[in-house]
């Protein structure tokens, strides 16, 4: 397996440094996602979410500021221009066209995108790519592409997001908990 970084905090550090201030979303941060509609019928589980600025604003309006978790989520999405998620799970290995996933990966080779993490485990056929879009030294977008034999996920976040804040929301709203060392050891990782 290859990797471009190590550890949860080291994974976040470059992005946190870059996302100190909110940037105007450059169009480059918005990926062109293929039409995966046909896959939804084949998939056992599918997530297709497209939240642009107006829908994010609408969602923010339905977060209760007096509730700490909702308030934290509101802060988290304050600098965002859009969140786009495509995730499909299948009951057979490699039931999805990898070419379409590759097509999205190729977009990350464009100037402005910087690789944050890349892991490719040939043994279990798991590949994870995390890229950050940087404009004039400020992070204005994030792309996560994971492909596994029975699942692939593409996340494209346009705008500045504080991943440490997202991580703090773990265990709330169905965000999974217990996967990181903090949860396993009961103390934060140094």
């Amino acid at each position, binding site marked *: 397996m290859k990797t471009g970084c190590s550890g949860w905090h080291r994974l976040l550090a470059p992005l946190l440094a870059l996302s100190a201030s909110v940037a105007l979303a450059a169009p480059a941060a918005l990926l062109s996602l293929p039409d995966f509609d046909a896959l939804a019928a084949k998939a056992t589980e599918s997530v297709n979410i497209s939240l642009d600025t107006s829908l994010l604003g*609408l969602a923010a309006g339905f*977060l209760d500021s007096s509730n700490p978790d909702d308030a934290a989520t509101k802060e988290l999405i304050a600098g965002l221009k859009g969140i786009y998620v495509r995730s499909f799970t299948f009951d057979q290995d490699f039931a999805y066209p990898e070419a379409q996933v590759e097509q999205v990966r190729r977009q990350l080779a464009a100037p402005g995108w910087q690789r944050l993490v890349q*892991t490719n485990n040939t043994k279990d056929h798991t590949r994870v790519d995390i890229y950050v879009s940087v404009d004039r030294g400020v992070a204005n977008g994030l792309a996560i592409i*994971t492909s596994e034999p029975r699942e692939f*996920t593409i*996340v494209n*976040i346009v705008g500045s997001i504080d991943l440490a804040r997202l991580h703090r929301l773990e265990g709330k709203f169905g965000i999974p908990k217990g996967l990181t060392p903090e949860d396993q050891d009961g103390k934060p990782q140094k």
Partner: protein
Amino acid sequence: MSDNQENEQLEQRLRTALRAVDPGEAFAPRLMARIAAEPARTARPARAATAASWLAFGLAASVVLAVILAHQWQVRRLEQGREARRQLLEALRVTDEKLNLAYRAVNAREGAAPAQHSGA
């Protein structure tokens, strides 16, 4: 006073009251002019009253329609907002899940590296 005298006096008063009076030469043209003018004067308020009724009905209907539309818009907005909130939380859940997948992959590599190094 006898009954007979009373009857005569009553008859006399009636005759006086109901005597023919010459209305004058101008009466007929004045009457005709008034008759001619009368329908126009009465028709106008009738039309105005009808228009006012329609206006009132229209206003009432508009208010009811506006209330119904506002309610429907509010219900739809509420549904959209709840759905947007649900999608937002789902998107954040998936994002965090995949970041954790990356973390695990990176961490596995970190753990594997010293073992490889010590075995070399």
